[in-house]
């Protein structure tokens, strides 16, 4: 049995065109990414801003055709599928976007936005049926009573409610996988947990696999507690493994830095924080990534090798890591309560 | 800087710099400067045919020769003497003018004498005078254009004499296509060779030309300089009628040509008490010709019916309030001329086409047309026509008149639409093939150049108006392109129109000419080839406070400065001559005008 979705050495290089005859500058947003998703599993994808997380999400949902590599859905190459297969793939892989306001057409009511896809995919036969189904969906995501929301325009709802609508829309086509691209970063802290819980409930009750994209390790840990986590840096996956393993013993120096930077809602720990294990604060531009290991300019452990050759993902312990000096990197431990 | 003493302030147009140049024959000419700068051997007053001698001191018709003596001492404005060679030059280069078709040659006798040799048969004397007088001979100085004059002289010498009337060109010469081309090329070169400023022999010299103003100064060497009471002429280029009127109203100009609509005219006189308005007939009628190629306009009775159906009073009121309506359809001559050439008895025999819708209805009924319940007429086959009147869109006076005519026809039961089209396509649309319009509106019954009715008659039968009427012509044979019109005249005898027109300049007796004119006028009216809406009345505003010497001064009070069209011959002459368009700057040259100190 093959995985639900597999990314086979996928690279996504954008070309920033300038004008009709302009020469394009390449932007390698994803480089040689190898990743697979099993049915019903939750994978958290974390990384700094601009490292290519959204791009990965778009490749997975078929919005970008990768410039290299293959995207396999149930073993078949998505970009070589026939119409029916492609349509099936389309239906099965859904997306939940970050900005719930932008993701809903402000000119259309919730019912309009939610009924059209199911009508088009013939999941329901009539408007009447669609109405019932939309109510059911709203109910599922906790917007009760549905009648109160169904005729509303997006601007008439709060951010949390809109985010629920997005989830309802994503599950309406009965997908097998949902890519959630920073689904809670725009909602209030106090409501984040509710949405995350909803997602994890949907995962459990409907068996939908989730790719949770975020830069917030804390929420990633929360939602994917039994799933996996992949850490991205400048278009590359630098560490990958089960959430527990990855967080318990982070190996890649970048991940260690990242974890050190995560704020902790506990003044005793937070105030005792030490310096970040980093050489430089600023992330290099993705347009001209550093040679070799792209993390080397910021890495405390970088050697000449790191400047020259790019490491590849290798299993180390329970996770796979892409670092020349995995062994040398000291074990990371969080500052603990004094 | 502005010196207002002894200045005459005129109004006019000219090509704006950089388009302005000194050759009056080139496009746009020299505009309003022309009359002040250039003159001819004679000055004809074209609405009265009165002829003044200008650069000619004497004329002597001797058999088929006309000997002209030039005033001695006349010089071009650049100081060079004006001689008979310059007159000859004019006819050599500008050999397309009408007179050359009647000449065999022009000979220079000496510096001040020149002989015109006429072909046989030669036109009657008055006709000869008219031919000579309509030209402005002192416009092509040999000392400026010698190269082109010699060239054309040389080219013309290559041509053979011919007697074939179809091949006869200027001076009875057969101009082959090859020759034609060379002559045209030479003409082109001549046009581009002009000086920056015009050089004529006239009383004023152009000193400055801008987009809005022209300044001329007195030519101290003018041959009749003692008559010229002005040191300068300022000409304003108003661009639009409104601007001209505004200048007039505020007293910034001394003269303004034309007759604006009645209310504007009255308003002008009321707001500027220094103004007087003179009115005079234009030798031109605005009217509409029928397209004989478009049934039912091929039918004489139908055409008559249409003429009867039009209430020309109303058309006149809108088109030209002071104009004159006719009681004829169209005669080939302006209405005001009829009494001069046609005896009252003869006039009686001409059908009166005054407004008479009943009569129109009768005529249609006779033709088998029926009036339907909707008030529209249907032809014998039962169809109601949809007529189109064509008119050149930019010419508002004609458009307005035509619009009223169209409405009247529609109201009468002959649905008619007006199509006002761009001037650049109008003539072509109207005349090409069968023509695009049933009726075309234009100047009809019009005399350009001189008044003798042959002029207006041929303008209709041979000119553009006839083409718009689609008069029958020979399609081939030796007479190809000539009129194929042999129609019964007033006495029942058939008249060949082409022949009659052809022979008219050669009719030596006055009675013969009058008889021919009557016949043609009668036939034209009876056949109702068109309908003259009204004879146009034009006029002039003059400033009597700054300038003195205007005619009819004693009648200002009587008519409250709005003088009607004169009826007395003296008045007619005097008033006509204030019109630059009719008589040039006669008032200046004759010394009648002077600044009022």
């Amino acid at each position: 049995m093959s995985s639900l979705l597999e990314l086979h050495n996928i690279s996504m290089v954008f070309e920033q065109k300038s004008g009709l005859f302009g020469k394009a500058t390449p932007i390698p947003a994803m480089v040689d990414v190898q990743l697979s998703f099993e049915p019903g599993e939750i994978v958290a994808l974390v990384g700094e801003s601009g490292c290519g997380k959204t791009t990965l999400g778009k490749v997975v949902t078929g919005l970008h055709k990768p410039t290299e590599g293959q995207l396999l859905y149930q073993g078949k190459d998505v970009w070589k599928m026939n119409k029916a297969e492609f349509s099936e793939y389309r239906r099965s892989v859904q997306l939940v976007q970050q900005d719930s306001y932008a993701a809903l057409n402000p000119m259309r009511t919730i019912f309009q936005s939610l009924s059209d896809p199911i009508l088009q995919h013939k999941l329901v036969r009539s408007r009447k049926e669609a109405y019932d189904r939309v109510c059911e969906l709203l109910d599922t995501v906790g917007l009760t009573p549905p009648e109160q929301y169904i005729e509303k325009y997006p601007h008439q709802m709060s951010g949390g409610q809109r985010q629920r609508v997005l989830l309802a829309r994503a599950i309406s086509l009965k997908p097998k996988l949902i890519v959630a691209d920073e689904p809670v970063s725009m909602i209030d802290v106090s409501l984040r947990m509710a949405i995350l819980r909803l997602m994890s409930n949907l995962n459990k009750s409907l068996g939908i696999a989730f790719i949770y994209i975020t830069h917030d390790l804390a929420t990633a840990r929360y939602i994917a507690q039994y799933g996996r986590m992949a850490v991205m840096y400048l278009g590359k996956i630098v560490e990958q493994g089960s959430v527990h393993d990855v967080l318990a013993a982070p190996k890649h120096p970048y991940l260690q830095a990242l974890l050190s930077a995560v704020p902790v809602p506990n003044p005793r720990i937070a105030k005792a924080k030490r310096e970040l294990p980093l050489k430089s604060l600023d992330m290099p531009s993705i347009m001209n990534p550093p040679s070799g290991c792209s993390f080397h300019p910021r890495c405390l452990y970088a050697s000449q090798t790191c400047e020259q050759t790019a490491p590849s993902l290798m299993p180390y312990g329970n996770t796979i890591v892409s670092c020349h000096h995995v062994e040398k990197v000291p074990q990371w431990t969080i500052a603990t309560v004094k | 800087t502005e010196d207002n003493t002894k200045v005459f302030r005129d109004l006019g147009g000219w090509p704006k710099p950089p388009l302005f140049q000194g050759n009056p024959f080139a496009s746009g000419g020299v505009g309003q400067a022309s009359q002040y700068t250039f003159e001819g051997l004679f000055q004809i007053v074209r609405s009265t045919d009165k002829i003044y001698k200008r650069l000619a001191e004497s004329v002597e018709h001797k058999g088929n020769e006309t000997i002209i003596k030039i005033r001695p001492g006349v010089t071009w404005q650049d100081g060079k003497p004006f001689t008979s060679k310059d007159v000859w030059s004019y006819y050599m280069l500008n050999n397309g003018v009408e007179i050359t078709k009647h000449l065999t040659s022009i000979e220079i006798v000496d510096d001040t004498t020149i002989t015109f040799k006429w072909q046989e048969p030669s036109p009657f004397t008055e006709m000869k005078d008219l031919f000579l007088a309509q030209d402005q001979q002192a416009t092509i100085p040999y000392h400026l254009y010698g190269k082109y004059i010699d060239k054309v002289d040389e080219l013309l010498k290559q041509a053979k004499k011919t007697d074939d009337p179809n091949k006869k060109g200027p001076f009875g010469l057969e101009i082959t296509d090859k020759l034609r081309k060379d002559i045209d090329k030479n003409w082109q070169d001549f046009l581009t060779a002009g000086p920056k400023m015009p050089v004529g022999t006239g009383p004023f010299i152009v000193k400055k030309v801008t987009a809005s103003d022209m300044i001329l100064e007195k030519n101290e060497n003018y041959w009749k300089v003692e008559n010229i009471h002005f040191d300068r002429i300022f000409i304003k280029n108003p661009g639009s009628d409104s601007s001209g009127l505004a200048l007039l109203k505020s007293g910034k100009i001394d003269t303004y040509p034309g007759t604006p609509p009645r209310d504007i005219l009255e308003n002008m006189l009321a707001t500027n008490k220094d103004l007087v308005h003179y009115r005079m007939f234009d030798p031109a009628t605005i009217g509409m010709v029928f397209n004989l190629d478009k049934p039912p306009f091929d039918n004489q009775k139908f055409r008559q019916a249409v003429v009867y159906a039009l209430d020309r009073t109303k058309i006149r009121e809108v088109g030209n309030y002071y104009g004159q309506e006719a009681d004829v359809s169209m005669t080939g001559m302006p209405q005001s001329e009829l009494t001069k050439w046609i005896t009252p008895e003869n006039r009686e025999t001409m059908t009166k086409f005054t407004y008479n819708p009943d009569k129109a209805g009768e005529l249609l009924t006779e033709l088998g047309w029926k009036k339907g319940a909707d008030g529209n007429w249907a032809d014998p086959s039962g169809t109601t026509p949809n007529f189109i009147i064509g008119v050149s869109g930019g010419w508002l006076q004609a458009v307005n008149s035509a619009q009223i005519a169209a409405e009247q026809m529609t109201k009468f039961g002959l649905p008619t639409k007006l199509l006002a089209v761009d001037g650049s396509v109008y003539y072509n649309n109207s005349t090409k093939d069968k023509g695009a319009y049933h009726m075309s509106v234009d100047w009809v019954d019009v005399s350009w150049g001189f008044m003798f009715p042959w002029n207006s008659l041929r303008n209709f039968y041979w000119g553009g108006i006839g083409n718009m009427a689609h008069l029958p012509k020979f399609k081939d044979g030796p007479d190809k392109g000539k009129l194929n019109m042999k129609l019964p005249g007033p006495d029942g005898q058939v008249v060949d129109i082409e022949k009659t027109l052809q022979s008219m300049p050669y009719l030596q007796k006055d009675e013969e000419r009058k008889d021919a004119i009557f016949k043609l006028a009668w036939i034209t009216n009876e056949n109702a080839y068109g309908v003259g809406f009204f004879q146009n009345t034009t006029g002039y505003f003059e400033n009597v406070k700054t300038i003195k010497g205007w005619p009819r001064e004693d009648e200002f009070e009587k008519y409250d400065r709005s003088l009607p069209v004169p009826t007395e011959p003296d008045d007619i002459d005097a008033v006509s001559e204030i019109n630059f368009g009719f008589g040039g700057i006669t008032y200046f040259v004759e010394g009648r005008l002077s600044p009022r100190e």
Partner: protein
Amino acid sequence: MRGMIDFFRIICHNKRSFIGLIILVIFILMATVGPFVFKLNMTVDYNNRYLTPSFEHWLGTDFAGRDTFIQLVHGSKEVLLVGLLAAFFTLFVGALLGTISGLVGGRLDAGIMLITNLFLTIPSFPILIIMAAIFSIRDPISFALVLSAWSWPGLTRAVRSQIISLKERDFIVICKVMGMSKPHIIFKELMPSITSFLSISFIMTMRGAITGSVGIMMLGLAPYSPTNWGQMLNLAISQTGGIFNPLGFIYLFSPILCLALFQLGSIFFANGIDEALNPRLRG
């Protein structure tokens, strides 16, 4: 239906657009019902020219004694029709090309934009004259076509940039993910978002076209129709000397006033459209 009611409710709520609406409605009535109510009689009645307004002649009479108001009413039909058609053509071409250009992108987009820019650089006034001659304006349709010939590029550009910014929006992107059809995306997602823009453009184009038509009419390039406002203006200026005859003032200023009022109405009405069509703004 409820949308319509909502629409007008909001328009009426906004003071400006309400005034605009009223003005436009009056003009529409004038052009549609007006000619049936007021019978046009163009018979010359010279003695009664330039009458001052009275019960019989609301705006007095013109230089030939014909009722000015009724001429205005009958003229409005043609003026509005030409404006309407021109706006329609412009909108059609502009929206179509703009949408295609924005959606498809690539070479087609570059091509369309090149042509559009080309049209934008050639001065429109002489072209209008030339077009008027080429197409020999005969009826409102050809008139409108000529008028719109040079007004679409601006709209094309505007629509294109709207579409381009829209198509990257999340709610369009998600449509692709959900496998929604192209027609759905265009007509149900994109169009509603630019309707208010298009309606405003429509009104503004119409307003421009009417000014243009009056200009062409004044230049005598369109068929003579004495009740057309432009022609009335032209006649007023030439027949009343524009200004020299105070009696002609009413005749001169009534088409100008109508024109100005219509423009005013359009501008005001357009003011409220965005609000009325956008659920966000109607609160």
